[in-house]
């Protein structure tokens, strides 16, 4: 009974909410003027047209919608187009253009400061320094936006969606390209990133720093400087993402740096220089992932401990596992390795001789990168075979004692 009663109390608000029209020949020709006049819980409908405005401050709860093609052009001014300083603001359906750049201020097409309950949806954001910038923002949504930066000045690009200190956010179904990072989380907890497509960003498709208890799933990361970097964070869940074509000498699909207790499951890593690079990662479960045609599937440094790598498919990678340590404190078990050449006499589906995923040549490459020219040559294959029979340089503890004989089917 309580909830309907509260709703009744707020009923007058809905009754007095006005619709304010902005556009040529309407009540207001400038968006800025309409914002001044609007009262809380009004709806601003912006009609088709080209508006040369910026620094639009929203300091009361408003719904801002577009009717037709609405273009708001900051004309390169070093200022935000929308600056949201009130809770419960919705901004939807606009085309926002030409913000900045600026070296001194983090200016964006839409910036929110110390708010909650904000929705930013279905906007086209072109050539802006930052696309959407959430600052001290909670319980808000960024959905269905298409954000593309100007490619010519890549290094001075900001991030497409940037969050600095946030909580309970939903970042869904956005497309980002041509920015520094597609999505950047710094000090963001308990948030979800679902169904986004991040491609052609200069640094990372998705980047976590000092963020805990977040989940990202069903995202696609292609052709970025590197796919995803998860750094200095705890309990991040990474599920059913695609990491593809993150290619280059210092590139990787997924970078794990100083993180603990995450989960990496049911992802696909295709055609990356290094699919996963782990440094200082601990307590992470990596299962049911597919590693297909990568230079290196998993590069796991000696300071990674207590990680479990099970039931994955490793198919046609040049190197399955690379490490810089002689010891192994991680669990590799029941994975499928296409490079495995053992047998299964007891027919339980798992090979009877252990598989050693680290080969000698990967150690040599680590010391002498230019030796790469000899990969797949006769002499290297010979060395690798001998080393597998009499291991002396490769970490003897790093084996999969139950290598699976046929690949897993996950669907």
């Amino acid at each position, binding site marked *: 009974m309580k909830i309907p009663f509260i709703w009744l109390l707020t009923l007058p608000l809905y009754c007095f909410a006005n619709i304010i029209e902005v556009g040529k020949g309407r009540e207001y020709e400038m968006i800025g003027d309409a914002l001044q006049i609007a009262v809380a819980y009004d709806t601003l409908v912006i009609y088709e047209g080209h508006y040369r405005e910026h620094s639009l401050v929203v300091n009361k709860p408003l719904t801002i919608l577009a009717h037709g093609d609405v273009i708001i052009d900051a004309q390169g001014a070093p200022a935000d187009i929308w600056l949201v300083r009130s809770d419960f603001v919705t901004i939807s359906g606009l085309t926002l253009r030409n913000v900045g750049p600026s*070296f*001194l201020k*983090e200016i964006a097409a839409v910036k929110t400061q110390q708010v909650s309950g904000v929705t930013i949806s279905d906007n086209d954001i072109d050539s802006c320094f930052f696309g959407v910038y959430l600052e001290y923002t909670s319980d808000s949504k960024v959905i269905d936006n298409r954000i593309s930066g100007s490619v010519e000045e*890549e*290094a*001075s690009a900001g991030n497409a969606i940037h969050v*600095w200190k946030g909580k309970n956010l939903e970042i869904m179904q956005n497309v980002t390209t041509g920015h*520094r990072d597609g999505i950047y989380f*710094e*000090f963001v907890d308990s948030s979800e990133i679902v169904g986004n497509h991040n491609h052609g960003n*200069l*640094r990372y498709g998705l980047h976590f*720093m*000092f963020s805990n208890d977040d989940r990202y799933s069903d995202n696609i990361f292609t052709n970025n*400087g*590197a796919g995803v*970097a998860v*750094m*200095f964070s705890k309990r991040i869940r990474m599920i059913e993402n695609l990491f593809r074509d993150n290619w280059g000498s*210092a590139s990787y699909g997924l*970078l794990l*740096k100083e993180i603990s207790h995450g989960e990496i499951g049911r992802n696909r890593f295709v055609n990356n220089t290094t699919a996963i*690079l782990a*440094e200082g990662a601990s307590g992470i479960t990596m299962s049911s992932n597919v590693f297909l045609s990568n230079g290196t599937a998993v590069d796991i440094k000696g300071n990674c401990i207590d990680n479990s790598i099970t039931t994955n498919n490793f198919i046609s990678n040049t190197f399955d596992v690379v490490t810089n340590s002689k010891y192994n404190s991680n669990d590799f078990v029941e994975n499928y390795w296409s490079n495995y050449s053992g047998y299964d006499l007891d027919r339980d589906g798992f090979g009877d001789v252990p598989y050693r995923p680290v080969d000698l040549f990967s150690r040599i490459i680590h010391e002498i990168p230019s030796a790469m020219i000899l990969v797949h040559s006769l002499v290297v294959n010979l060395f690798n075979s001998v080393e597998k029979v009499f291991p002396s340089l490769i970490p003897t503890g790093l084996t999969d004692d139950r290598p699976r004989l046929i690949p897993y089917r996950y669907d």
Partner: protein
Amino acid sequence: MKDYLRYGMLIVAMAVIGCSPKNPDPIIYGKDQCYYCRMSIAEPQFGAEIITSKGRIYKYDALECLVNQLSEDTSLEGRCFAIPYDRPRELFSVDSLHYIISERYRSPMGANLAAFYDQSAFDGRALSWNELNEKFSGE
């Protein structure tokens, strides 16, 4: 005889070039990678570099990465350079700069640390290079 002279000059030239102190190598944004945290270096207002006593060059995406590395790895020595917030992309010797820690400057590795070339470009009291290192090694 002429050949000897030629080779001799070449050797002298190589010796001169080889022995001269190295200049800092400009950071290529979007391409170079941080030696400490492996992030690719992308923000032109931040960055640092060290030329070790052996002549190796390491680059950093943020000054806090260099300072952290110096405090962790005491065997690392050399000439340090940093990029001032008010002079993006240019490397200056760390002794000539002023250091500010403030939430206004969101440096790439979360230390809110910025270097400044011009003393009038910021408010408040700046730290010197030595004070900055003491602060980080104390943490």
